[in-house]
C-alpha cells in the first residue's frame, strides 16, 4: 500500500468514525446531513443457505430499504414525543473496522467496505445486544464533501437478536 492509498483509507475511516459518533451521540439531524439525495439505505434479510450457495441474503426482502425521503421520515419520527422505542434512547457504541477502499475517482465517487459492530444497551437492562455486519458503502463527492449515496448492510444474523431496529446501522 502506497502513501496515497493509506491517506485515502484514512480519509474514509475518519468519515465513518465521525458518522459513528453522530449516531452514538443521537445527533440525527447532523447524521442525516451526511446523506446524498440519491440515497439507497438497505439491509437485506440474511438467509441460511446450503453450503457455499451465494448470495446468502434475500435480494427482495429487507429490514431497511429507504430512500432519502423515508430516512427523513424515520429521523423526524424520532423527534416526536411518541417514538417509544427510543424513549429513553438506547446507549449505543459503533465500532468500525476493516475499512477498505474498493473503488475511487478523485472528487467524484468512492466505494468503501467496512465492518460494523454495534453495542446496544437499553434502559436499566443489564443484558446488551450486539449487532454485527459488513457495510458496503458508496459515496458521491458534492460541495466539497463526501456524501453517502448507498449503504448495503449485511447483518451477521438470520434471526436478529435485538427487539427492534429503532437505531441505524
Amino acid at each position, binding site marked *: 500500500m502506497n502513501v496515497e492509498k493509506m491517506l485515502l483509507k484514512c480519509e474514509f475511516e475518519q468519515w465513518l468514525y465521525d458518522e459513528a459518533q453522530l449516531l452514538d451521540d443521537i445527533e440525527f439531524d447532523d447524521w442525516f446531513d451526511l446523506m446524498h439525495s440519491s440515497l439507497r439505505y438497505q439491509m437485506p*434479510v440474511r438467509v441460511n443457505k446450503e453450503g457455499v450457495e451465494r448470495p446468502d441474503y434475500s435480494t427482495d*426482502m429487507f429490514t431497511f430499504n429507504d430512500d432519502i425521503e423515508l430516512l427523513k421520515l424515520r429521523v423526524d419520527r424520532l423527534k416526536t414525543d*411518541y417514538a417509544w422505542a427510543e424513549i429513553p434512547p438506547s446507549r449505543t457504541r459503533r465500532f468500525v473496522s476493516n475499512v477498505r477502499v474498493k473503488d475511487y475517482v478523485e472528487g467524484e465517487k468512492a466505494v468503501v467496505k467496512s465492518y460494523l459492530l454495534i453495542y446496544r444497551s437499553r434502559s436499566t437492562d443489564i443484558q446488551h445486544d450486539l449487532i454485527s455486519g459488513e457495510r458496503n458503502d458508496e459515496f458521491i463527492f458534492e460541495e466539497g464533501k463526501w456524501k453517502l449515496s448507498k449503504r448495503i448492510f449485511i447483518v451477521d444474523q438470520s*434471526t*436478529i437478536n435485538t427487539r427492534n431496529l429503532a437505531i441505524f446501522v
Partner: protein
Amino acid sequence: MHYDVKLGRERKSMLKTEKSLEEMSKQQVVNYLNETVKPEEGVIPAYLLGDPKVYDIEHEKVFLKTWVFIGHDSEVPNKGDFMTRELAGYSLIITRDAEGEIRAFYNMCTHRGMKLCRADKGNKSLFTCPYHGFNFKNTGELVGVPLQKDIYGGNLDRSEMGLHKVKLESYKGLLFGTWNEDAEPLEEFLGDIKWYLDILVGRAEMEVIGVPQRFVVNSNWKVGSDNFVGDSYHTMVTHGSIAKLGMVPNATYSKRGFQIHTDNGHGLNLGTPNPDFAFPEELKDEFKTNLSEEQYGVLSNLKNMIGNVFPNLSFLISHTKIKDRFISNTSIRMWRPIGHNKMEVIAWMLVEKNASQDWKDRSRDSFILTFSPSGIFEQDDTEVFTDITEAAQGPMPFLKNLTYNYTMGLHREPVDFIGPGVAYDDKFTEASQRNFYKYWLELMTK
C-alpha cells in the same frame, strides 16, 4: 371494577395455598388456573406471562395440540423446493415433491436422530444425513444407506425407516401443521375466521415476497397475540408518532370499524370505512371472482384488518399514506415461543401475484417501513411487549395476585354484521382478548 378486584383478593386469600407455583404439581397448577383466570369477567392474572411452569403446560396443551402455522405454499413454488420451519419447538422439513405435493417431516434422521437439513430453504429432492450418510427422498422414503448390504446383511428394512411425517393441511395457501393426530380438520379449527382469511389471503393469488423477517423479542408470546387479536386502543398512544407524521388520519381513527371474534379463540379488528380502495384497482375482477359479494363489500371499504388465528398467527392489512400516496400491505406474523419470556417474531409479507411491479415494490417498502424490525409501528410495540413481560416475571405477581383488567366493552351487546362471528360496532372493546383467553383456558385445563 372495584368489586372485582376486591372479590379477587378475598377469594385469593381463601384459596391461598402454602405452595408457590413452582412447588405445585401440574394438576395443581391447572386447578389454580381454573380458579384465577376469569376471561369472562375480564380478569387475567399477570403470572400467565411470567411463569415457566405455565409455559411448559402451554407447550403440551396448546402448541402440541392445536394447528400451528408453518408457512405459505408460495414459499416452495417449484418441484423440489424445500424449507425448514418449526412446529412447537421441533424442526420440520417442508418439501414439494415431483408431483407438486407438499409434505412436512420431522427434521431428524431416523437412524441416529441427527438434524437432517440445516438450511432455511433450497431446492433438492434428496436429503443426506451429515452423520452416517443415510439418504431420504423429499417424499420421506429412506432410499440409501451407505454399505447397506455389507453391514446389515440384507436385514435392514428401509421401508420402516422413512422420515416421520407431520400432519399438514392448508387453507388458501396458509400451511398449518400439528403434532396431534386426533386434531380436528384444519377448516373446522379455523371455523368462521375463514371468512376473514379469505379477504386476507384468498382475495387473489398471493405470494410471499422474499423471505420472512426474523427477530427476537424478550416477550411472552401471548402479548403479541393479545395485541393483534383485538387491541386497537393502544394505537392512539403507542403509535401516536404515526398520526403526527400524517401517515394515518388522526389519533382516534383507530376506533372506527368493527371488532369480531369467532370460536376457538380467533378474532380481529376491521377498520372501516375507507374512501379509497386499498388494493390494486386493476385486480378488482380477480377479487370479485375469489370473494363473495359480501366479502368484496368489506374489502372495498377496508381501511385495515388486524387479527389473530389462535394461538400465535397474527395478520394485518395496513393502509397508510407514504410520500403522499396511499398504499396497503398485507402481512402475517408468528409469535414463536422460545421461552416463557422470549419469542421469535417471524413476519411474512404477502402481495397479489398479479399486481404491478410498482405496486409490489411500494407495498413491500411500506411493510418494511411500518411492520418489520425497523418498522415504525412495530418497534414501539416491541418496546411495550418487552416491558410488560419483564413486569410479570418471578414469584411476586403470583404472590400479590396481580391481575390485568380486560373489562372494556363488557357492558356492550353484539351487533349484526355482514360476516360471521360475534361483532361489535367499533374496535375499542376487549371482547376478542377475553375470547382468546377463554379458549386458551379451555385447552390448558382440558
